């Protein structure tokens, strides 16, 4: 039986795939970044369709910000950000297509062949989900969550250290 959830899953799944494909099919870097933004928003909506409300909203908010920053970086660092020069930005194209297709077919094959057991019909509502996720973070997964915090701090320090101008350190 085709449910509303399945129809929404297919619509927004196809949107995520279409925009994901457009990322690598346009010459304009700004369009690439906006396509990736649209793909990530479609993934966030897929989370909402699968009734993971908190993660869906978080995904849309985080990726909206990250992709906007990515668009700025692309305009800064690309030789031809508008795509007017029709630069060729590909290498090993046939190998890449083969790798992408083979991996997709293998994963789809595994998904279809596996015995997934019984599908859950009972699941917590949005308020209960937030409470249980909070309890998970504050109890069993507290160390993992704190590790994520330390990892973010390490990433920030590493990013600043890598991006520092070499000229300044030579002058010292």
């Amino acid at each position, binding site marked *: 039986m085709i*449910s509303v959830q*399945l129809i929404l899953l*297919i619509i927004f*799944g196809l949107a995520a*795939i279409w925009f994901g*494909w457009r*990322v*690598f099919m346009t010459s304009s*870097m700004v369009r*690439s970044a906006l396509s*990736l933004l649209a*793909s*990530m928003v479609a*993934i966030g909506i897929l*989370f909402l369709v*699968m*009734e*993971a409300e908190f*993660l869906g909203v978080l*995904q849309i908010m985080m990726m909206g910000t990250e992709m906007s*920053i*990515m668009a700025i*970086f692309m305009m*800064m*660092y*690309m*030789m031809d950000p508008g795509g007017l020069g029709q630069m060729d*930005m*590909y*290498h*090993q194209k046939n190998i*890449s*297509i083969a*790798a*992408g*297709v083979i*991996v*997709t077919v293998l*994963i*789809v094959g595994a*998904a*279809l062949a596996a015995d*997934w057991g019984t*599908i*859950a019909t009972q699941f*917590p509502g949005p308020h209960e989900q937030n409470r249980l*996720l909070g309890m*998970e973070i504050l109890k*069993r*997964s507290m160390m*993992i969550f704190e590790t*994520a915090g330390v*990892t*973010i701090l390490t*990433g920030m320090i*590493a*990013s600043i250290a*890598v*991006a520092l101008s*070499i000229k300044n350190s030579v002058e010292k």
Partner: protein
Amino acid sequence: MELLITALIIAAVLFGIGLYGALSQTNLVMIMMGIELMLGASMINLVAFWRYLHPEAFSIQMFVLIAMTVMALEGAVGFAIATQRFRTSGTVEMEESAELKG
């Protein structure tokens, strides 16, 4: 069952597109976009496994939060490397970064 399989197929196709992008692009920022797509696909899988197989296991949602952290960090460190590459060689084309092979 068809809901879980549909979500897994969507994630598989997105992962394949991301892999194609990461392998075929010559620009560092475009390679990062491919990696972002692959991480997005992995998160769809995780949410589908949580919703349709183990809705009581919130460690799966916790895992999605960790994957989002990895995505943000990958962006930050990747842009830092791009900034340094642009400063030293004036380009972020990976074809011209053969000396990074070590």
